[in-house]
């Protein structure tokens, strides 16, 4: 069964596909909610445009940010994407919790179709358009500086990856207003998502937005791995790298190898849907079990892609705020590498129930439990990092501590799920949902929030308001427990995931508690936003120009806050771990360099935004079968690549004299700054210069 050929100008798009028209034609609560969401999106975009016009920011936006290939700016833009998508996906989560808390023997406010789209967008956004951009942005910003490098190995490729991910996110946002999204979940198992059972544009939105971002991530993995292998400062051997760089390396290796199965699986699904192929169909030789294997061959390493950078953040945060070197550096490296390798050997545990027999299940079950060993080692190494230290409970540290406690509960339930027979009883239940949220919220999200709190002063030159940060922390922590602990109980009581209406009254109490928890989680997010606004308003009292507000241990703290475009006036020479702490102890942290050289930096480029816009057009056109636009998008993307290859002036030189002038001025400023003891870290006395303890 092939797709109908549609050579009309707008493909299969009709006015009925606009969500506001749907709300008008079918005025039920579910449609009102959908219309409201679309309105928020449209009004939000108009507001942003209005503000940019009012503050005359378009030029800055285009010339300083959107065309930039500087890893620091690319990193910040990734994190902006993550925050915007987090806002949407959190609201979707709250909405689902609300529906479930009232829909016991009652249809609730959401139709099954709307609910189906909600859990699909919630999962897809959180993983692909919130967590992945967040970690990619964090690594982008921090890792080159920690290595003593000026940028990643392929800056333009970096920007292109960003725009591919942003294009995917844009497609998902467009689906809020034009057409419907998939109801197949973030995993999109066929044959349910095949053309027979899900005709229409929903699954196609999922396919193309995911494809775009997965290509972006593959390229990012290549970029990061090359940077870590080839761009380190002289003297920085692999075993002198900060642990965040080790986790970045393992993450990028995983990206390189794990994204391919996803690209293939989605492409095959697309061929089934668009061209009548039989990869995953019920008949004519299709095999849906292949999809499960391919998807999880990607999916399991994917969750390690998400968690390893968070582990890296925790290593940095815990050691810095304990005033101590990380405990067990080599153990942690071995553990991280083991986790990366083992992550490719466990994928079958996502479908123990598919009937492949005890032999196969048992092997993968044991492999899954094996991964628990290096993870447990890491948890104890972090604990031991705090022992014999001097612990300061900043917001970042609070998130790290809560991670330690909460994550091990998730690890426990993971070991439970790793046992095939028990998994038979809890697979697809709310117990499973609670488990994976128990890993990603305290693990990935807390890690990224901690990293955001930790490195924000470096990136923007002023500290965030700790009070609001702590309020946010308490909301996230208590909110997490209230939302997901009841879900464990519900799963054990036979409640399944993706359920729009319940029929057992004993579930009601638990679901209501979970809804309250969800509101707290949302408050946690709001408080983060408030923290940002308040801190920006108070930024003059919070400035840390000397660049080292936390008495940091690695090289990114040795330059100004915010850092210059080229990161380091002179590339540092490294002689051991905790490179910056060493320099401070030797009194060399702010010594004037003997010689300056010209610095070559890449020029900005319009190629990345052009590819991004082309990608949005290509994806949208594929969804709606607008074939002329497909061709145009494709030509735009490859045309930009080819045209760029003919450009010879891709770099500019910053003369040594300019570097010297800027750097010496900053050093002078630093020398005039008073040092801050850790007790006064959270006061306006902290201008970013740390006291060196005897």
């Amino acid at each position: 069964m092939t797709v109908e050929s549609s050579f009309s100008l707008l493909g299969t798009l009709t006015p009925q596909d606009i969500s506001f028209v749907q709300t008008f034609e079918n005025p039920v609560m579910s449609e009102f909610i959908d219309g409201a969401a679309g309105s928020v999106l449209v009004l939000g975009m108009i507001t942003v445009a209005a503000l940019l016009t009012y503050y005359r920011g378009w030029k800055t936006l285009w010339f300083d940010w959107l065309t930039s290939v500087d890893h620091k700016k690319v990193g910040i833009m990734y994190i902006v994407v993550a925050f915007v998508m987090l806002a949407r996906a959190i609201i979707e989560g709250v909405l689902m919790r609300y529906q479930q808390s009232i829909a016991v023997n009652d249809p609730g406010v959401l139709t099954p179709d709307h609910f189906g789209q909600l859990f699909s967008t919630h999962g897809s956004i959180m993983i692909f358009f919130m967590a992945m951009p967040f970690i990619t942005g964090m690594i982008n910003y921090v890792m080159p500086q920690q290595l003593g490098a000026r940028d990643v190995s392929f800056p333009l490729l970096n920007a292109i990856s960003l725009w591919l991910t942003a294009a995917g996110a844009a497609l998902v946002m467009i689906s809020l207003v034009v057409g419907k999204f998939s109801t197949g979940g973030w995993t999109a198992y066929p044959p349910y998502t095949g053309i027979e059972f899900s005709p229409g544009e929903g699954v196609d939105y999922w396919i193309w937005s995911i494809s775009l971002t997965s290509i972006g991530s593959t390229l990012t993995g290549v970029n990061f791995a090359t940077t870590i292998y080839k761009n380190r400062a002289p003297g920085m051997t692999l075993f002198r790298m900060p642990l965040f760089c080790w986790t970045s390396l393992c993450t990028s290796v995983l990206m390189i190898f794990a994204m391919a199965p996803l690209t293939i699986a989605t492409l095959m699904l697309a061929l089934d849907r668009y061209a009548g192929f039989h990869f995953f169909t019920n008949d004519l030789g299709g095999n849906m079990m292949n999809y499960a294997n391919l998807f999880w061959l990607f999916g399991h390493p994917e969750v390690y892609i998400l968690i390893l950078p968070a582990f890296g953040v925790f290593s940095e945060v815990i050691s810095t705020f304990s005033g101590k070197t990380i405990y067990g550096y080599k153990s942690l490296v071995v553990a991280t590498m083991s986790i990366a390798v083992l992550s490719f050997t466990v994928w079958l545990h996502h479908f123990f129930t598919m009937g492949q027999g005890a032999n196969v299940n048992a092997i993968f079950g044991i492999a899954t439990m094996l991964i628990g060993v290096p993870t447990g080692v890491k948890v104890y190494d972090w604990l031991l990092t705090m022992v014999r230290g001097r612990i300061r409970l900043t917001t970042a540290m609070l998130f790290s501590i809560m991670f330690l406690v909460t994550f091990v509960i998730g690890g426990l339930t993971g070991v439970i799920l790793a046992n095939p027979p028990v998994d038979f009883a809890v697979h697809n239940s709310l117990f499973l949902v609670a488990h994976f949220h128990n890993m990603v919220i305290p693990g990935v999200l807390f890690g990224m929030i901690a990293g955001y709190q930790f490195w924000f002063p470096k990136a923007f030159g002023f500290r965030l308001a700790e009070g609001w940060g702590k309020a946010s922390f308490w909301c996230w922590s208590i909110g997490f427990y209230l939302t997901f602990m009841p879900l464990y109980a519900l799963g054990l009581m036979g409640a399944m995931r993706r359920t729009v209406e319940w029929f057992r009254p004993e579930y009601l109490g638990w679901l209501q508690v979970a809804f309250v928890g969800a509101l707290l989680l949302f408050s946690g997010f709001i408080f983060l936003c408030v923290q940002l606004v308040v801190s920006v308003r108070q930024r003059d009292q919070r400035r840390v120009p000397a660049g080292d507000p936390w008495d940091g241990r690695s090289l990114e703290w040795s330059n100004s806050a915010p850092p210059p475009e080229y990161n380091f006036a002179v590339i540092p020479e490294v002689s051991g771990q905790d490179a910056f702490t060493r320099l401070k102890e030797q009194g060399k942290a702010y010594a004037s360099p003997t010689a300056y050289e010209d610095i070559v930096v890449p020029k900005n480029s319009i190629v990345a935004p052009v590819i991004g816009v082309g990608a949005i057009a290509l994806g949208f056109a594929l969804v709606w079968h607008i074939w002329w636009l497909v061709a145009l998008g494709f030509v735009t993307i490859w045309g930009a690549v080819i045209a760029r290859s003919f450009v010879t002036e891709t770099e500019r030189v910053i003369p040594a004299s300019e570097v010297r002038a800027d750097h010496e001025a900053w050093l002078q400023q630093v020398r005039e700054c008073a040092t801050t003891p850790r007790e006064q870290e959270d006061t306006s006395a902290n201008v970013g210069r740390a006291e060196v303890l005897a």
Partner: protein
Amino acid sequence: MKRQSLLHPGLNLGSTDEYSHDEAEPVIFGFWVFLMADLVLFAILFATYASMSVQGQAGGPSPTDVFDLPSAFIETMLLLSSSITFGMASLALKYKADRLHLVFWLVLTFCLGAGFVGMEVRDFWIMTQQGAVPQRSGFLSAFYMLVATHGIHVTAGLCWMIVMLVQLLVLGRTTEVKLRLMRLALFWHMLDIVWVCIFTFVYLFGVAL
């Protein structure tokens, strides 16, 4: 001494163009890493094909019914020769100061590669005339996807070759152009290796088993 340590796998420009050689290392390394990701893609297509080549026939055509081994053999010879000619082009890049030899070998490679693609398109056309379309069965879907993905890669390589020929004309033998040709060479050789696997595991095994 530093030069000695900057060796990347494959043809190194070291002695003939030291500046380009210095610039090459991270770029070529990164491209090898990208090729590894591409190989994972092909590995998965092979695995899919293996799982569907027997069980996915659905009573439709089997490999013996549709595979044209003589044609596949000629395609193999074309592609293998094109790797030799590209090797000659790489040597010309490294050892000859002019563009003539380089352009000659590249054009020859292009012709051989285009011959490969042309014959493959003809093979597919004949198969569709026989009713062996990808919509017929899972086996055929997997076959077309694996072989056509390779063919699309080769076609992309051909487009890349044309762009490079234009660049040689317009920009000359600059460092950037040299590094791009070195990457195209790696890409081309990798595709050759993948084809050898296709010829063996798809065509030969398909007919023999």
